[in-house]
């Protein structure tokens, strides 16, 4: 068939169906585009010639075309949720219009994956946060700015510069480390959004339930966060400059014992230890931590014509971090352009580049050592370091920072280009190619030093590096994603139908190269491998590759804006599973009923909107490493025969050759409402999410000989169910005074319902205490499983009196001052059979409260965030490496001594002090997340100086926290995001062992002063 013919047949059929065929001679039509305040095109706006029945609606791109015979006619633009406007034509041929929203909450357009919907038309659960709300906070990653703003979205952030917070959408959705949501940045699917400048963000939409996220199939199990960046709008060029400058400091510090307390403690814990007499009283944390400066600067240009729209931003951020020598600098550029090549053909290119430099600190080592280092050893004295290593086998943390220069440079280029073509108004074809490329290089120089008196106050210990060492790492990753979709959208009378179909494929390839030489001179100009000893030259390399291929489709149907129906389907195939298990099918359906549209509902009353909705969907998770089902070999294992080096191999890890998809099925019910002209809005949701064949890394018995004694398999099933409540009130009292207040609350209940081999999963090793969490049927994932400590035996009498039913002494070997444990099974002895479940890190509920007001030029806002019902295991206190490890001041003050028979804290803590509830603490906290006070210059002054906007503001992140936990922060990301492998970036904390505090980066408090200028 010829193209023309095909088109005409289709058009003819449609005309016959709808009876909308128009007759009469064509006249020059009036054209234009309708947009919202943000410059987004508004589809479906009704345009009528006043006093007639003639009219039309805007197309998906907001354009319309209407034949008008009377040049003085008045056009009426109306759209639900927006204030209607009447525009006299006045002989014009083009009328562009911006509609002001009347109740923006409900009519907000949200991005739902491969398309957009009005929020009021959704049948699933989607939360949105505007870019302005994120950019207003002094945070480095957008995710952190969402904290406390959305029900069902729990965000745990670390204070480490350049780190990405951990996100849990509706509970822990996976047992694997990859419990992170999928991010979609302008169509680019990624795990890492640290390259996105918060200033560039227009909106962040979180697809929370399975019916909303199922369009992303296998990637959606942990929720989907869609980030849309800003675009230009038609009009004159707008230039803005935004900056902020401030500092960060540690929000909460653990005070360690001073020399007197420490010496006193060691009299009991290690009477044989000879304490060196330096007369020192070192505060190691004080030496390690500092106030870190933080600055951001952004310049953006945007504007455009009907044919070309542009948005351009350059941003710079520097964040020193609160740890000595730590630093993070980031430079970003974004250019989003849109060319309207023809009225039905558009090309959009959105490209961003990021470069960052990190001066890295090995935090796990440094924090651990700082916690343990004895106060009796000087940090430095007379230019020499105190030798903590010789005394107590703990490296001097300040020395270890000073003797390493670890610089990390990361470049990321991310972009999407798409062509969108509408052969007819109701069809939109889009082909989009996205690329995500990363290049990293790392230069780590380890300075040589000896454990003698040239470095230390005294010699000895194992902290030394006889030879300097230079490591260079280069890593690159390239990913492409090719999306092709066709969207049909048409209104037939009161039927509104949108059909989407498409296919997408994706491939990632990465490689890694590392070279090392020793004996490199200590001068930055010589930090190249060539300057090192060639006889010590070694290198290693690695690679990764994976691909996915998918088909997808979705139907949205609504009748009279009243009955809403959505159905979607996705088929995914992933190279990460064996070919028999490779395909996954992910359907979803949802229905909604806008009750307030029913004729029998009273109109004009307090109620302005009411919707009931329900949905079901199935989603999956393939967020595991690439080759977990194929047995591979390690080659290059050296040995010598006859003095000749000979290489060997071994089969590396035990693999599950039958690995399959993890699938989640979710039901979601919601009620959305608005009262009093949408001044009061709210939403209630119930969800029930069942995950089966959960992918998880389980520990396996050592006798199987696996080198790390663990492997990844489909280990079990679990459920997350809960309620979400959101309510908000906003009102404009007068032109000059408006305010808003709102809050959200999420109740979540997580429970393991099945274990594939009936084997509970033990994780969370804390030194000699062994595994302290148990994941078993009927319990939340990663529950602490420990002895029940009832207190401390104050006297020998209490020990003698502690007997079971047969009069047997339960802890006959205890001494006064030891912990007393409950004999749960009453067998007369304390052992593993007496362990109890003592809670988990997963909160029972979490909540956010926000409030704001604007009066004349002053704006003020604050938001709070908190969670409750979870527990934290104080792992750093429990993990005693050596008797001489320092203890916390609070413990030292409260522990049992012969003169102070405490019943709360034991006399001493040893490495083999068993895991017990003594180390379990409450994870509850409540925090003033952000408080901001701003002032904008009045319009008359601005007009005089030809400015659009000048605003100055003061802000503080984390100004105040109320918590019960004695550690650094109740917000714990077990370790920093894996810094190698940018596209596979994951927080390495497994949900199976969440909430064990070992060496976290403390939460920080930020103060900043900012300025926004637009002209």
């Amino acid at each position, binding site marked *: 068939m010829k*193209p023309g013919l095909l088109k005409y047949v289709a058009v003819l059929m449609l005309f016959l169906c709808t009876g909308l065929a128009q007759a009469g001679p064509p006249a020059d039509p009036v054209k234009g585009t309708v947009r919202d305040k943000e410059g987004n095109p508004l589809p479906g706006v009704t345009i009528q010639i006043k006093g007639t029945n003639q009219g039309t609606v805007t197309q998906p791109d907001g354009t319309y075309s209407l034949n008008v015979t009377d040049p003085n006619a008045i056009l009426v633009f109306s759209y639900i949720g927006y204030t209607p406007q009447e525009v006299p034509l006045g002989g014009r041929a083009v009328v562009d219009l911006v509609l002001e929203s009347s109740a923006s909450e409900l009519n907000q357009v949200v991005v739902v994956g491969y398309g957009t919907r009005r929020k009021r038309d959704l049948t699933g659960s989607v939360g949105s946060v505007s870019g302005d709300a994120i950019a207003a906070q002094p945070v480095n990653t957008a995710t952190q700015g969402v904290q406390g703003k959305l029900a069902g979205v729990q965000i745990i952030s670390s204070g480490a510069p350049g780190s990405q917070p951990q996100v849990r959408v509706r509970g822990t959705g996976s047992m694997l480390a990859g419990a992170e949501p999928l991010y979609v940045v302008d169509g680019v699917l990624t795990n890492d959004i640290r390259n996105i400048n918060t200033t560039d963000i227009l909106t962040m939409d979180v697809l929370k339930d399975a019916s909303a996220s199922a369009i992303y199939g296998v990637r959606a199990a942990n929720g989907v966060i869609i980030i849309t960046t800003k675009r230009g709008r038609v009009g004159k060029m707008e230039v803005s400059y935004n900056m902020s400058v401030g500092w960060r400091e540690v929000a909460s510090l653990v005070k360690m014992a001073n020399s007197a307390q420490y010496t006193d403690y060691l009299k009991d814990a290690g009477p044989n230890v000879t304490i060196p007499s330096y007369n020192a009283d070192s505060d190691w944390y004080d030496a390690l931590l500092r106030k870190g400066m933080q600055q951001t600067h952004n310049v953006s240009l945007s504007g455009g014509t009907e044919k070309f729209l542009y948005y351009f931003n350059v941003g710079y951020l520097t964040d020193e971090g609160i740890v000595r020598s730590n630093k993070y600098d980031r430079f970003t550029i974004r250019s989003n352009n849109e060319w309207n090549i023809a009225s039905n053909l558009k090309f959009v290119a959105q490209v961003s580049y990021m470069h960052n430099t990190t001066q890295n600190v090995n935090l796990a080592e440094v924090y651990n050592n700082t916690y343990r280092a004895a106060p009796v050893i000087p940090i430095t004295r007379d230019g020499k370091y105190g030798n903590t290593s010789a005394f107590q086998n703990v490296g001097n943390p300040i020395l270890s920072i000073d003797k390493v220069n670890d610089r990390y440079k990361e470049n990321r280029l991310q972009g999407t280009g798409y062509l969108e073509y509408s052969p007819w108004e109701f069809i939109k074809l889009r082909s989009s190619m996205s690329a995500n490329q990363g290049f990293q290089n790392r230069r780590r120089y380890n300075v040589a030093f000896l454990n003698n008196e040239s470095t230390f106050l005294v010699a*000895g210990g194992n902290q030394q590096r006889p030879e300097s060492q230079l490591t260079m790492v280069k890593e690159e990753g390239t990913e492409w994603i090719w999306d*092709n979709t066709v969207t049909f959208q048409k209104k037939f009378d009161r039927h509104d139908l949108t059909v989407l179909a498409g296919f997408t*494929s994706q491939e990632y390839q990465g490689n890694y190269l590392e070279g090392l030489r020793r004996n490199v001179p200590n001068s930055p100009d010589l930090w190249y491998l060539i300057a090192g000893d060639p006889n010590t030259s070694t290198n290693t390399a690695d690679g990764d590759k994976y691909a996915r291929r998918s088909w997808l489709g979705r139907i949205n149907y609504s009748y009279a804006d009243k009955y809403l129906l959505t159905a979607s389907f996705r088929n995914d195939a992933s190279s990460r599973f064996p070919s028999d298990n490779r395909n996954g099918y992910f359907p979803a359906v949802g229905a909604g009923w806008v009750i307030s549209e029913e004729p029998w509902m009273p109109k004009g009353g307090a109620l302005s909107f009411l919707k009931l909705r329900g949905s079901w969907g199935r989603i999956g998770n393939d967020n595991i490493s690439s080759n977990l089902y*194929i047995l591979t*070999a390690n080659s290059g294992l050296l040995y010598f*025969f006859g003095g000749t080096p000979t290489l*060997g191999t071994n089969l590396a890890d035990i693999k599950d050759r039958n690995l399959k998809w993890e699938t989640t099925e979710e039901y979601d019910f919601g009620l959305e409402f608005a009262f009093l002209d949408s001044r009061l809005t709210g939403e209630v949701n119930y969800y029930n999410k069942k995950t089966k064949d959960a992918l998880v890394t389980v520990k396996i018995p050592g006798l199987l000989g696996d080198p790390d004694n663990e492997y990844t398999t489909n280990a079990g099933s679990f459920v997350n169910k809960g309620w979400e409540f959101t309510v908000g009130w906003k009102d404009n009292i007068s032109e000059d005074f408006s305010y808003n207040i709102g809050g959200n609350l999420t109740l979540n209940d997580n429970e393991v319902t099945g274990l594939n081999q009936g084997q509970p999963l033990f994780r969370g090793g804390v030194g000699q205490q062994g595994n302290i969490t148990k994941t078993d049927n009927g319990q939340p994932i990663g529950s602490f499983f420990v002895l029940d400590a009832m207190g401390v035996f104050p006297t020998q009498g209490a020990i003698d009196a502690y007997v079971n039913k047969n009069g047997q002494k339960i802890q006959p070997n205890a001494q006064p001052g030891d912990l007393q444990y409950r004999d749960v099974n009453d067998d007369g002895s304390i052992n593993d059979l007496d362990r109890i479940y003592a809670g988990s890190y997963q909160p029972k509920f979490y909540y956010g409260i926000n409030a704001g007001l604007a009066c004349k030029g002053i704006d003020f806002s604050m938001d709070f965030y908190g969670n409750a019902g979870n527990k934290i295991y104080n792992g750093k206190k429990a993990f005693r490496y050596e008797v001489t490890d320092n203890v916390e001041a609070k413990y030292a003050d409260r522990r049992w001594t012969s003169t102070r028979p405490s019943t709360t804290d034991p006399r001493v803590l040893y490495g083999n002090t068993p895991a017990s509830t003594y180390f379990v603490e409450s994870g509850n906290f409540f925090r003033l997340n952000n408080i901001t006070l701003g002032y904008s210059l009045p319009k008359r002054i601005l007009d005089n100086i030809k400015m659009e906007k000048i605003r100055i503001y003061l802000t503080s992140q984390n100004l105040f926290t109320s918590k019960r936990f004695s550690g650094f922060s109740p917000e714990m990301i077990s370790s920093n995001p894996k810094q190698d492998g940018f596209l596979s970036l994951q927080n390495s904390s497994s949900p199976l062992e969440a909430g064990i505090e070992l060496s976290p980066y403390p939460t920080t408090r930020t103060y900043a002063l900012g300025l926004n200028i637009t002209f």
Partner: protein
Amino acid sequence: MKKLNYIPFVLIGSLVIYAACGKSFLDIPPQGRVTEDEIRTNPTASIDLVNGVYNVMWLGGFGPDVHGLQFITLTSISSDDADKGSTPQDYEPALQIDNFIFTATNPIVQNYWTGLYQAIARCNQALDKLPLSPLEAAEKNRLIGEVRFLRGYFYFNLVRTYGGVPKLDRVPTPDEANSDEFQTRATADVIYELIISDLQFAVDNVPLKGATQVGRVTKGAAQMLLGKVYMYRKNWQKAFELSQAVVNSGLYDTLSAYADIWRAKGANSIESIFEVQTGTNAACNAAIELYANSQGIRARKGWSDFGFGFNNPTADLAAAYEPGDKRKDATIITILPNGTVLWDGFRVPSRDSVENDRYSYKAYHSRTQEPYCGSPDRTPKNLRVLRYGELLLQYAEAANEAGNGGEALAKLNIVRKRAGLPPAVSGGQADLRQKIWKERRVELAMEHDRFWDLVRTGRAGAVMRAHGKAFMDNKNELFPIPQEQIVLSNNRLKQNPGYD
């Protein structure tokens, strides 16, 4: 603006191409990793797997351990020959073992278990693939023999440490891995049967020293180890025959200078029967992790030291040497108040410059006179696992127990002669037994034999308690099954007596 109408065809075309892309797009082999399938089809792969078994003998550090500090702790620090050493507070888990106050959660107990099973897994993988190899039968059996020797050696260490352990004599299929067959303990007798059959296969299929590369398992090594195993089983006749076969092979002898056995120049000498090979390479990691360095002299002030200072010879051991015994100064570095000069000329400044009174000379590696590439944790020191001196004493003990006191005395006196001591005189079988045991202690001091030897000969309780250790009879002869492993087996692994 104009409308463009030809683009649908580009898109439809690309759809067709896409659909035709097919399945191969998703069949991505592991990048940079040889797969098991490739190993099956590669003729040299099974040889590579055998080499990989030898390599596992370097496993040490603070994780799974085969021959590192944790091995030293369990075999030497545990005994009356050595103290934990280092600073009093360093490495609490080892102190617990030194004083016999450890529990089943002690990390050393766990890491030695996982290390040895890792080694056994490598053996089983190689044994799984060797039958598929296109090599000639004799060559194939030689390789199988080498691996079975090593597996027997690893199991011998396991059974001596923990008693009966799960018997993994093949790579379990995924379905079998969780079965009771593998997840419960076999008896010590069953494990000994496996060890004996492995070593017997090696005896029958591995060439003599000289007919195979230095460093590989030899027939002599297999005979000696099998003889030692029979000695533990009190099968004196077999122990005697096998020891005799090694002597009669004429391929081994005592090295005249006892101290040289542990020097680089004494590596793979006439005395050596089996030793772990090490060397230098660019990465400087071709050695057992934390073997020599963990036992090196530890400075307190004034100089940069040689190690962590663990595993110090005790005063009791020093006193066990007869006057004039050359072996004492070859075994023990005694730090004198005004310093000690080592064989390579290095001078340890003074007693107050170091942490401890005595260090093991057998673990000392000269950084100036011997190969050393700069990474202390991987000092290239060969570990002498089996040597002729021990063989002679094993021979003597077996002969004595088998009723051949004359042969026994003759072999004992070869050992004494080299030590510069007068010949011993036998006062009957029981007297000679005591003399041989005493000789074993001083000849093999600091060579990871003492603890097991005391248990074998039933003297452990008395000797250990006399030495001040809290050793309990019928408990501490064996170490506990690691608690974590019991939990991971779902309590199917049963704990050793006394550790519950």
